[in-house]
């Protein structure tokens, strides 16, 4: 492009300003990407929830237990393929800050319901034979440098303050990108034997695998009807509805992130728009000369736009590189507090698109001003 020289000469006209503008793009993009990653981490549960799974909880509340006998009753309902049940164990490993979710599971059906969480067969068989066995998600195992065969003490806070001992028999991986690999599974039988009387023979919630996602509404209704008017009524929802409800427990994260994101967006737009406006205004007479020489209004608009878009792309790219480097580190620091932070390709593309958009818009107004500039007036002002 023969106009390259002109465009780049103008870009570097004020080097400090050029670097500062690129810097504001980079910082904004870093923040933008971080917010987007956090948002997607929270909504991921909803997105990757199995469409063919239902969650059955007590009508009274999430922490209310239900009789274990419900398992077989639910299994008998047509359209149900498998049922597993869980308890929230809520223990502490070494220190409060080492949080990870521990679930009491039903070994018989767990793998058939949570099909995407994969444990190698030999590990699973060892687990079945071992009353004190446990399976850990790959992320948690990695976090504490656990190896198979390790003995893991977990202090419970809900079930009589003592320390429970587990043997790590296996490690599960999620087949779905972004799946939860932080859980820790222990056997219901072991739990039931050692739990206080009030907790014996109960389940915290049931997870139901359906023959087909089309049955979701019908089966959910059938389950709730079956236990209606009993002392333990149920509330059955699809897994995604449940996940969405669960995220809401954190407060309206989406709104918060959207608000911060919009502030970042408009700040960046104002900053770069203002910078471009100043940079165009201070060379009004030069633009007038270009037009006198025979450059069209559209050419001048193009020069201004090209400049702001190049700045946006450079700054945006820098911000994304920073995000790419920083997010894994931040994610590690926040393990346990937040779901895993994943910087996907589509997010990177979105970020670059965002930068491009801001660059274009902020160059547009000054560019149109330059395009409409009347040569005679502009030269007279010199």
């Amino acid at each position: 492009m023969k106009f390259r020289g002109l465009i780049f000469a103008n870009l570097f006209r004020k080097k400090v300003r050029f670097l500062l503008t690129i810097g504001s793009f980079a910082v904004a993009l870093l923040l933008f990407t971080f917010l987007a990653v956090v948002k997607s981490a929270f909504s991921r549960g909803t997105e990757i929830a199995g469409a063919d799974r239902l969650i059955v909880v007590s009508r009274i509340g999430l922490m209310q237990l239900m009789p274990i006998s419900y398992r077989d009753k639910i299994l008998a309902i047509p359209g149900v393929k498998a049922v597993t049940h869980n308890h929230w164990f809520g223990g502490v490993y070494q220190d409060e800050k080492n949080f990870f979710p521990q679930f009491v599971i039903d070994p018989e059906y767990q793998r058939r319901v949570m099909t995407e969480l994969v444990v190698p067969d030999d590990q699973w068989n060892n687990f079945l034979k071992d009353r004190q066995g446990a399976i850990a998600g790959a992320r948690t195992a990695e976090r504490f440098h656990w190896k198979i065969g390790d003995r893991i003490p977990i202090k419970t806070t809900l079930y009589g303050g003592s320390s429970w001992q587990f043997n790590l028999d296996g490690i599960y991986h999620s087949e779905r990108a972004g799946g939860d690999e932080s859980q820790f599974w222990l056997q219901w039988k072991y739990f039931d034997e050692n739990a206080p009387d009030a907790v014996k023979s109960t389940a915290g919630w049931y997870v139901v695998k359906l023959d087909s996602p089309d049955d979701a509404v019908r089966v959910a209704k059938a389950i709730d009807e079956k236990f209606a008017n009993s002392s333990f009524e149920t509330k059955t929802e699809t897994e995604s509805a449940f996940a969405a409800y669960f995220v809401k427990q954190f407060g309206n994260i989406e709104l918060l992130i959207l608000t911060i994101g919009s502030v970042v967006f408009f700040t960046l737009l104002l900053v770069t728009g203002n910078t471009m406006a100043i940079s165009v205004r201070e060379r009004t007479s030069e633009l007038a000369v270009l037009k006198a020489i025979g450059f069209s209004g559209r050419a001048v608009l193009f020069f201004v736009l090209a400049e702001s878009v190049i700045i946006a792309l450079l700054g945006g790219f820098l911000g994304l590189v920073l995000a790419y480097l920083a997010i894994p580190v931040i994610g590690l620091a926040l393990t346990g507090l937040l779901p895993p932070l994943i910087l996907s390709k589509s997010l990177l593309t979105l970020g670059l698109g965002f930068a491009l958009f801001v660059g274009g818009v902020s160059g547009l107004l000054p560019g149109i001003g330059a395009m409409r500039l009347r040569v005679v007036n502009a030269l007279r002002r010199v």
Partner: protein
Amino acid sequence: MVQVDGHGATASLIQVRGLDKKYKRGSEEIHVLQGLNLDVDQGEFVAFMGPSGSGKTTLLNLLGGLDVPSAGSIVVSGDEITHMSRGKLTEWRARHVGFIFQMYNLIPVLTAYQNVELPLLLTKLSGAERRKHVETALGLVGLADRMRHYPRQLSGGQEQRVAIARAVVSDPTFLLCDEPTGDLDRKSADEIMALIERLVREYRKTVLMVTHDPVVAQRADTTLHLEKGALVEAGQRRRVPAGGVA
């Protein structure tokens, strides 16, 4: 022949007839040019003089297609430019007009070479052809060794010579100079004028120049005075008395 009575030959390069320019400033209307006539032939060198505010710059802007008149016509080598669309006029300027301003108006972030190359970027010339033209133009103004210099690294006279190279590099039909020596000392002014004169005498360029300086005007074939919105002939070349030097 330069004529101001509106009876020039139809073959003249520039033909201005009944040119009117009014400016509105609030409710007040200023009638700057009033039925101005002008004929200029190819290869002529015309100087315009007149008191400040008499409309000299206004006239050059109209001749250069930077502004549109309130009435009247301007025909340049057969093209009536007063009714051209803005886009057409821009293209016409690129092909036919070379501008030289009092303040040189070079682009400060471009080198002398890049400044001179600007008008050629609007043509279909290849990079190599552009280089040849730019080098020729800079050689013509005697700055072949200053190609990589930025305007701030040049003296005022050198800057104006770069500006002249930029004005002639695309070989326009005519040159418009608005006080080309207005910001220069006598010596630099003389060099610039010698250069412009050479463009006329050797290269048969047509030059229309505004100046306040009688010595500068003396270089032209014809000096015209702008009085009450019209041009009057002031004198032929060499007829300004030597004592008139400021």
